[in-house]
């Protein structure tokens, strides 16, 4: 199936991709992966434009990885949760539904790219730029999650709780993956690197951001130096 035709079906009628007997994973998965890489890469390119230069390339390479990481790491746990809730869910069906959802989210994120680029091109404040990025990701991600939910079979019990648990597992992996592959937006004075050294985790960063929003600017490294390895470098705070 041509990539353009697949794009149309992913956006217009994702459920039609799962019509018929069997799950066409072999037929659709390569194309869907290509869509995620292309659309996610395009969105990454836009994010990289905030800092410019080589960061265009870095962000374009890393963003599809962040989008795919929850699928690669959390899918077995998500399936086990649905099975425990009594939902008859095959791994191939879940994998395809998740791929379709992520592809749809990537395409929508890429569609928001031009507007985001326009905002970034007028030298937006760093924090506003982060908020715009988060807003775009939340919009696209919510659409992708709803799509996945609609593509899963019916039946089972405690569906809402199971959806929430699955979302929690995948969301935690997504957050840590994003933290691991940062920076995407780079502060104007920060050094551009492909990835930063592994230091602490996303939750420490969120905690530090929360403290600083309340006027405590010590940062996570100030409190955590005795806990973590001495070679851990201070965070640049960029994302």
């Amino acid at each position, binding site marked *: 199936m041509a990539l353009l035709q697949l794009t149309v079906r992913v956006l217009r009628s994702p459920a039609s991709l799962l019509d018929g007997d069997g799950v066409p994973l072999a037929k659709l998965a390569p194309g869907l992966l290509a869509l995620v890489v292309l659309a996610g890469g395009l969105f990454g390119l836009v994010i990289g434009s905030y800092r410019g230069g080589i960061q265009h390339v870095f962000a374009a390479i890393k963003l599809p990885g962040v989008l795919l990481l929850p699928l690669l790491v959390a899918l*077995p746990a998500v399936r086990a949760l649905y*099975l*425990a809730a009594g939902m008859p869910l095959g791994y191939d069906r879940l994998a395809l539904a998740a791929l379709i959802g992520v592809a749809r989210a990537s395409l929508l994120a890429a569609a928001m790219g031009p507007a985001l680029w326009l905002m970034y091109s007028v030298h937006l404040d760093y924090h506003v730029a982060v908020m715009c990025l988060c807003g775009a990701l939340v919009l696209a991600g919510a659409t992708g999650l709803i799509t996945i939910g609609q593509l899963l079979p019916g039946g089972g019990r405690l569906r809402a709780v199971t959806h929430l648990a699955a979302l929690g597992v995948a969301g935690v992996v997504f957050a*840590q993956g994003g933290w691991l592959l940062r920076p995407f937006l780079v502060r104007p004075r920060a050094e551009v690197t492909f990835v930063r050294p592994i230091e602490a985790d996303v*939750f420490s960063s969120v905690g530090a951001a929360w403290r600083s929003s309340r006027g405590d600017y010590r940062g996570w490294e100030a409190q955590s130096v005795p806990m973590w390895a001495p070679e851990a470098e201070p965070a640049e705070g960029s994302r």
Partner: protein
Amino acid sequence: MVVTDAASFPARPDSWAPPLTPVLEAAPSVPTVLWSIVAMGLVAASAALGAAEPAVVVRALPALAAPAIGAVVLTAPALLALHQFLGLDAAPERLVLALSRAVVAGGRIALGLVPVMLFFAATSTLWPVALAAAVAIPGLAMACVALLGLRDAETEALIMPPRFALLLVAWAGLSLAIAVRIAVSMADLVLAGVPS
């Protein structure tokens, strides 16, 4: 899942009434249950890899399956005894079936969490939190599946008898308390020797 409606009873040609002995769906095999227990140990060991100390990993493997399994093993006889004492309807086999299915569900979730725990062990310093999650998530899922299965097992009444509801709440509370108690002991055991 235990079939609970009248359709689960074999039809009798001479009467619309169901037979006295209900049909049970196949129970999980013993190897499946054992694998589920091993899976709970595996997920804990995966999270413990973040400690980078082989001794911690070795201790976590058996120790962290203990809270969930220990709670089920210790409370199941009490549940069965009280269930019969209160004169409730479900056959004891159905209760045991519901509990064994809950263990299998917990094991399956634990096995699914192994990649997530490995990911966090390799990319963060959150291994103590991951250890706690590796015990808590399959345990909570087990509890939910067990409660649903036990409720299904009580097939005869259209409305759940208050006595059974009370029994379920009491059993859930006791199981939780025992699981937490075992988890505290096991945490001491697993973290022994880790610099603090």
